[in-house]
């Protein structure tokens, strides 16, 4: 495998006493579509801003295509296509003027491509940007982010604020224009169904920490829900990788990461159980808000007998 297109190593950032990123490390191979998942305030935008050298990190190392944005932000930015969350562009300009203005800053700017895509996306080239609809404005942002054919594309929650149809179209463009041209794409999103279909791999960011990375398929293979009766495992220590425990009277439903190992143990012990597949939505939920306090500590009857 080639060198990672985006490498993040031990990244730390805090605002005052609030730690926004704690030892975040990531490697994204070239050509991969990588989704960054996390709740609001998990640190996605901060991380993306550090990747572009917009804000300095407290410590840690970041490289995009082998270049450190903290040292040479301009080179990084000229090789990266970026679409910010809720981005505004000069409202008084027209799309064509915006392209003309940006062209001198990128040696690889492709004006014909830009015009072609403005046309394809149905953006009026001579209308004021301030008058474009939300969806058109996101698409214009995408055209502007891609017209210099960047090898790396970073999209910060691009689908936010788009209606379902526009979102689907947007994802379609993502698949059609970026994945097929071999771009490395890093994007953040809240819409897990769409992420599952579009992304190769995901990272789950929670409170400034990366709690899990993996390809979507791997994640679904490894994270499973197991159903069994409480008594059968009472007294055993909570297994490694336990994410969420839920008790329904004497039945126990728990979600466990790297489940294969534990399932093997259950089989070896001859304990009755069911393994349930989970959707990405449920997996994300387990990682982010899963609780493990309900794991049965001691068998219920032995507690009653002890006095």
């Amino acid at each position: 495998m080639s060198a990672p297109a985006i490498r993040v190593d031990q990244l730390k950032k805090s605002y005052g006493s609030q730690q926004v990123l704690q030892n975040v490390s990531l490697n994204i191979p070239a050509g991969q579509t990588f989704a960054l998942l996390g709740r609001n305030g998990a640190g996605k935008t901060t991380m993306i801003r550090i990747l572009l050298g917009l804000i300095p990190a407290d410590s840690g190392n970041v490289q995009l295509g082998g270049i450190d944005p903290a040292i040479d932000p301009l080179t990084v930015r000229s090789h990266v296509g970026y679409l910010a969350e809720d981005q505004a562009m000069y409202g008084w300009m027209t799309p064509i003027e915006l392209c003309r203005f940006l062209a001198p800053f990128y040696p690889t700017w492709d004006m014909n491509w830009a015009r072609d895509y403005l046309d394809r996306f149905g953006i009026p080239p001579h209308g004021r940007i301030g008058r474009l609809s939300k969806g058109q404005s996101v698409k214009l942002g995408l055209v502007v982010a891609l017209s210099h054919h960047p090898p790396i594309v970073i999209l910060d929650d691009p689908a936010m604020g788009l209606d379902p149809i526009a979102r689907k179209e947007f994802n379609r463009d993502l698949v059609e224009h970026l994945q097929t041209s071999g771009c490395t794409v890093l994007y953040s999103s809240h819409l897990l169904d769409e992420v599952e279909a579009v992304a190769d791999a995901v990272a789950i960011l929670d409170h400034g920490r990366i709690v899990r990375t993996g390809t979507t398929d791997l994640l679904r293979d490894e994270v499973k829900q197991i159903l069994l009766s409480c008594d059968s495992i009472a007294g055993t220590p909570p297994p490694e990788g336990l994410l969420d425990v839920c008790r329904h009277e004497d039945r126990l439903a728990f979600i466990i990461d790297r489940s294969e190992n534990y399932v093997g143990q259950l089989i070896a012990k001859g304990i009755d159980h069911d393994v349930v597949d989970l959707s990405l939505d449920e997996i994300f939920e387990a990682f982010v808000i899963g609780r493990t306090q309900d794991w049965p500590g001691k068998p219920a009857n032995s507690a009653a007998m002890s006095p």
Partner: protein
Amino acid sequence: MKSLLWKQWQENRGYLAIFLAWMVLAAIYSIGYEVGYGFHAPVGHFSGLSLFYTICAAVFLAMRAAQGEQSAGTLSFSASLPVSMRRIAAVRIGGAVATLAIPVLVAAAVLSLALASGFVEQAGPRGVEFLPRLPQRETASLLTALEQLASVTAIAIFGGIELLLVLSVFGCWLRSQAQVGLLGAVMGLGSMIASGLFWYGERRPYVQLVYGAVLPQSLAIQWSYGEEHGGYTDHELAQYRWIALGLSIPVLLIIGYLFVIRYGRLKDIALPAKPGRFRFSTPSLWSHIPIRLRGRWTALIWLELRQSGPLVTCGLLFALLIAIVSVLTEPRGNYSTGASVLAAMPHTISFVGMLWATVVGSGLYSAELDPRLGAFWRSRPISSDMWFWCKFIVGLAAVLIVLDGVTILASWNAPRDSPTTGMSWAYVGCFPVIHALLYALAVLGTCWLRKPVIGAFMAILGFAVLNIAITTFPLTDHLDPFTVYNNLLRDERAGHVDLTQHGYPLVYGVLAVSTFILGLVSSRFARPLERTFRRFTLLPE
């Protein structure tokens, strides 16, 4: 109702504290100045200061009253509360009026204590005849002095409230606080000019009464005089001022009611934000001209010119309008209207330019420091310093070339009769530098506080404070930039032009260097998405 008042108090108390400090300091300053120079004119001085205060405070409070909820995005929340929007509007505007008026009243009380204790004295009222001048007039009795003070205070408050209400009503139609601020600055300047235009004084007291009822500001007028050391402000009051003020109360109530109705309807249009509702569409001519921008600098300069050009041109047109109005309403001299307008331009541009330099300075930077647009340009391969200095220099050049340059060229051959007409070498030497300084101050304020109107306002306030600081002490009084300019102009009209006199090289050298230093400091703050000042920037995510 009680909770609405509580909310209003929470929102306004910060401003109330600042305004109180401002006006109390103003009262102390006028007392101190009186004690230092002894002109017997504390009331006139106070009247001038409170006029400036009421205009600034009215603009500020109107911005908040009319647009505060839109820009904070809480309007649809307020509209959903089980309280009528009219009641909310009434509380908002009532709070604003109180915030405006209380500081003036407190400051007037401070000054009246000083008068009552005999600490300072006030000369007698200005009579029908303009002579004798104030320093020759007898000291007025305490009762007369207090009545003068009360009139001046009441007129300032009523005038300020009127400006606040009118601005708030118009503000409901506008789309942002910055627009209200700009409109306010223009209207404030306009109202100062209007109250001068509508001044008939003792000549036509009944006409003055009618004007006064509609425009309370026009019931008093201040005349400033420069002396060998320092200067004083004499004031003149309309004869039937109290009756006019009484009549203006219903006028103010009607405007206030208009605001309440207008604001009460806001919720209907607030939710579906129709783009371009009140905008007429200008054809995008530039877009159709296939310009190829070669090189980064060309592109950036093109961008900045596109932004600053229209702004600066508006300023020039505004100044031209003021010059035309003032020429048309004043007794015509021996010259044609065109020549008179050109002769009036330098004086008009000198003060409109100060206002407009701050408008351009803050307007150019505010948009791009906004996090949403900031995220866009910051992520382009444009270095921050390149962007900042290109913007700074192009904006400054636009201000100086379009406002000062055009005026200098156009008015150079216009008649030069009085100190306020015609072009001069003193103007060429002084005002571009002052405009540049105000521009740089506005840039600093905007980059630091990230709020365009407050930034521009800080610039004007900073400049005013600097002026006050220089003129307070007899030792430094002659180094005041305006004093230097007046001295140079006097010499020039007497026949000799020498820009090395009267401390010009020192004073204006310092101003020019400060402009550059201010730019340098601002460039450190001009990094959107990074924090400058804790309270004013957004938290991450």
